[in-house]
């Protein structure tokens, strides 16, 4: 098991280096001139050259790359050229908002997707199976921005039950961050009113973000369960008198969860990046919105930072999935 663990972690390290290279390349192939942006709209040629020297952009690329690496190693993501703020500080502010959204969306996806997948596998080709199939196909097919607008129209405008945007009402003072996740912080401080408010704000964007994730978890889990229930070991378990509940929930589901886990890992990273659309529709102050506004301004450092964070999330999610594979499947534990 230890060998397996070390191999996986080593592989993740290599991937991290590749990711850093990639973000660096992105910043250098972008068509905008960051020095011109930094110097301002009215700057002359000499001022632009001055800015270029200030930001080290006149150095050869290998040197720039080395400096980028050393800065990253010190936890320094660089400075936004447009605002002059540290990208690291910005990310620390915006990332928890996205993380909270993704965690809730993933929780919805797993907690509904897996049981519904099991249910439709057990009721294969029955009404429940058809209903979840229609639900899953629409979940994947509906464009999130359109679906988000529809929910806003229904729950905020018509029914007046939920707010349309933001993490909290504009009149509410955000609490001092502990974890940065409002739902967690409000519970930690025992502020249930704040918890209710945060929940009412997050629920619609979380639903919109989770729908494609929920749909794909449901479909994969269903087909894997159908497969697992047909396996010889399930026949044997029935013959030996194992209870039907235990056969479905342990003997078959454990096998079906392996491919489902892979989808969950991929969807985690996918949601981190696709949150852009949802954050825009719901004006959610996360890294998606941050990346979009920076990119529009031609401000490449924040985009690099966000790319790195999203990539890291992909990697960590897949590392965790790989480790869970090792826990679930004893055949993988052999070093």
């Amino acid at each position, binding site marked *: 098991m230890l060998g397996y663990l070390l191999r996986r972690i080593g592989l993740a390290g290599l991937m991290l280096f590749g990711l850093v290279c990639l973000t660096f390349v992105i910043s250098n192939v972008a068509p905008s001139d960051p020095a011109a942006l930094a110097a301002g709209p009215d700057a002359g040629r000499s001022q632009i050259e001055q800015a270029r020297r200030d930001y080290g952009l006149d150095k050869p690329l290998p040197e720039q790359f080395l400096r980028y690496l050393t800065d990253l190693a010190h936890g320094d993501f660089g400075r936004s050229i447009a605002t002059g703020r540290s990208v690291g500080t910005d990310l620390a502010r915006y990332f928890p908002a996205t993380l909270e959204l993704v965690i809730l969306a993933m929780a919805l996806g797993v907690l509904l997707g897996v049981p519904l997948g099991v249910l439709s596998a057990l009721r294969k080709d029955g009404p429940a199976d058809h209903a979840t199939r229609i639900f899953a196909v629409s979940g994947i097919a509906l464009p999130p921005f359109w679906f988000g607008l529809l929910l806003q129209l229904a729950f905020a405008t018509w029914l007046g039950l939920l707010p349309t945007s933001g993490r909290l009402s504009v009149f509410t003072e955000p609490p001092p961050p502990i974890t940065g996740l409002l739902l967690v912080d409000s519970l930690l401080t025992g502020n249930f009113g704040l918890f209710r408010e945060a929940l009412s704000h997050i629920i619609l964007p979380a639903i919109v973000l989770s729908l494609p994730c929920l749909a794909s978890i449901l479909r994969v889990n269903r087909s894997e369960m159908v497969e697992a229930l047909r396996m*010889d070991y399930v026949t044997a378990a029935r*013959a030996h008198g*194992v*209870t039907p509940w235990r056969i479905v929930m342990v*003997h078959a589901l*454990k*096998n079906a969860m392996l491919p489902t886990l892979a989808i969950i890992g991929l969807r985690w990273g996918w949601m981190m990046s696709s949150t852009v659309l949802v954050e825009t529709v719901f004006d959610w102050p996360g890294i998606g919105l941050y990346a979009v506004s920076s990119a529009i301004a031609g401000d490449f450092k924040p985009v690099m930072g966000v790319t790195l964070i999203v990539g890291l999330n992909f990697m960590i999610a897949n590392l965790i999935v790989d480790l869970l594979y090792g826990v679930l*499947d004893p055949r993988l534990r052999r070093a």
Partner: protein
Amino acid sequence: MTALLEIADYRLAFDTFDGTAQVLDGIDLTLEAGGTLGIVGETGCGKSVLARSLMALNPMPPARVVSGQIRFRGSDILGMSDREMRRLRGRAISMVFQDPASYLNPLLAIGTQMEDAIRGQDAAVGERQRPRAAARARAAELLAAVGLPEPARLLDSHPHQLSGGMRQRVLIAMALAGDPVLLVADEPTTALDVTVQAQVLALIARLVAERGLALMLITHDLGVVAAACARVAVMYAGTVVEEAATADLLSRPLHPYARGLIAAVPDLDHPERRPQGIAGSIPSLITPPRGCRFHPRCPVATERCRSEKPLRREILPGRSIACHHATP
């Protein structure tokens, strides 16, 4: 006294996309308590489907009972609810499977699988499930009974860590968990190495003798039947064509198909006699031949065989043949 197991005019069909396959076409068989019956036949003759029928393990649909009864201790299995059937599984009828690698769950420890079986059987008869520790102790006892060393360590192992012979012993141990009276073994040695086959067969024979189990052994290997079964039924394309004491059948097969099977076995005492194959191949069960299902391959078939299905009749005491041309 009623027999332990009575199968009467049992017909089973599979509804497939290509049509309805008449997989079992009127099976009549009887097994007394403590009796041993071998079922032999080619792949696809329906012997495994018959074995699974005894535990209601055939998926329905596509399988569908057309007619007949399978009476176990006098009550018809085919009419039982799933709940009633679960009371029998493991506790009255148990099954040993063909390929121990695929019939053990790859992700669960041997101990977990055995405990689940033992506790599930408790639940099926409406008892309180015994604690895991008690089930585990019982599992270790069973593993020791089938001759596996270090049961405690084995319970923590996973199937991939075991050899094929060990896995099959584990499955046999699981089959014994509920002290059944009837053991159905579906090709229990086919997937094993030749050297291990003999050991596993000897184990099954010993357990059957020690515990007074009735045994229904499904195989395509006449040698296996000779070693473990007092009686044998030869199946062809979903019908039983001959049923006899094993020694009688092996020394003097009467049905043309049974004769063909015996002639196909290499004779080590007379190596100059080349084994003879049976011409042709097994018929489609969706459009089976009219009359006797064997007639297209039969060397003695006549016009009557093409039109009239032969019924199995007792032509000698304890020996019955389904052939128009059979003579004692």
